[in-house]
């Protein structure tokens, strides 16, 4: 046998080994374990704010840590910063490229990042009188689907070039690349201690990475379509993903496998976005069919719906104080619910 054949055989053996090891610890289901838990209350949040200002599809939104400011990005070529409490527009950032797919605030909210089909992540300083472009992070060979600040000087990106990147904003250079996905990287989420992060991609896998050495630590299989959204459970040990396969799934990192699948009786719409309430009990998921479903994350039951948008819900977000959930849509509106 040639060396290549030996390696291929070893790869197959290792894959089987991993599956066997996962099965060995798969002694129950999350549903069974939660059968004794009282059902979550049937909540019906009301739309408290409708924010109208964009003139095209909204693709992304992000809450500032002050729980008041929220930024949205639309293919009308603008980032709008909203004072959601007062219900007014706080700032407007025109973009060089209208094809925005992601927006985020830095921890101070003095910087916003946006990325999209221009293959760049653009950092704009909005703390002054006028927005000022600070950096254009150039280096990905594909669209920038997601960007998340670690600090005022460091940002993580997920790209259609199948890699994630860690960038130093002082130099504008990439500090680390994360190579292992075999499909477009669509979303990332940072662990609280910022030593690791998770990513979801069009190869249907989610992966756990070490930020410093660029190493992929664990790969999570189960989805059968592009993973569009990913978020940590607040206990930091599990995460939830949303996919074009019309399901959401919970993966536990210590058990190294999927522990729950959230699927409608007639699954016809892909999941575009997801957010978790403060305790992790409520899972809000935006779908292609214009709705946002509310799931009981422990029991796997659908317990409510947010309806009000006239087109796909493309993004959702919950601020750090957990006081509301916001939705952004292709209908060009944002809504805030509680």
């Amino acid at each position, binding site marked *: 046998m040639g060396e*290549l054949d030996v*390696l*291929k055989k*070893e*790869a197959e053996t*290792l*894959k089987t*080994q991993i599956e066997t*090891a*996962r099965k060995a*610890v*798969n*002694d*129950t*289901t*999350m549903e069974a*374990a*939660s059968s004794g*838990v009282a059902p979550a209350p049937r*909540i019906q949040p009301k739309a*408290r*704010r*409708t*924010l*109208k200002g964009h003139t095209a599809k909204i693709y992304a939104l992000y809450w500032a840590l002050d*729980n*008041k400011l929220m930024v949205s990005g639309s293919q009308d070529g603008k980032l709008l910063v909203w004072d*959601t*409490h*007062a*219900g007014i*527009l706080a700032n407007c950032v025109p973009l060089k490229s209208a094809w925005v797919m992601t927006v985020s605030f830095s921890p101070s909210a003095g910087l916003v990042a946006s990325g999209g089909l221009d293959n760049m992540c653009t950092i704009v300083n909005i703390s002054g009188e006028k927005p000022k472009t600070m950096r254009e992070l150039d280096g990905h060979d594909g669209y920038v689907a997601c960007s998340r600040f670690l600090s005022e000087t460091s940002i993580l990106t997920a790209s259609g070039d199948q890699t994630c990147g860690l960038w130093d904003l002082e130099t504008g250079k990439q500090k680390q690349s994360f190579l*292992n996905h075999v499909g477009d990287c669509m979303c990332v989420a940072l662990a609280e201690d910022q030593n690791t992060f998770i990513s979801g991609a069009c190869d249907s896998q989610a992966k756990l990475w070490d930020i410093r050495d660029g*190493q*992929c630590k664990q*790969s999570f299989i189960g989805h059968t379509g592009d993973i569009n959204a990913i978020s940590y*459970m*607040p*206990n930091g*040990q*599990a995460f939830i993903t949303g996919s074009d396969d019309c399901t959401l799934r919970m993966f*536990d990192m*210590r*058990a*190294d*496998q999927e*522990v729950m699948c959230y699927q409608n009786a007639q699954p016809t719409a892909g999941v575009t976005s997801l957010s978790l*309430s*403060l*305790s*992790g*009990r*409520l899972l809000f998921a935006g779908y292609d069919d214009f709705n946002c479903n509310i799931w009981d994350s*422990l029991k796997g039951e659908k317990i409510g719906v947010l309806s009000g948008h006239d087109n796909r819900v493309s993004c959702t977000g919950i601020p750090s104080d*957990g*006081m*509301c*959930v916001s939705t952004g849509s292709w209908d060009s509106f944002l809504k*805030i619910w*509680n």
Partner: protein
Amino acid sequence: MSNNSANSNLVTAQKAVKQLRLEASVRRIKVSQAAADLKTFCLQNAHKDPLLMGVPSSDNPFRPPKSCALF
């Protein structure tokens, strides 16, 4: 097959095996343990979860209702 592409196939296969060895070596806990921890966390923090508990009008920063329309 040229030497170069044969070599790069080999390198790719070596990397794949190295990665799989790393992922195989992860220490796993039982799903029952993971589920119990998640359950405990959610239940212990339920009372602090405004969306779960409901937000009283007096504490709700989004009341009174306001709409923002730029046009």
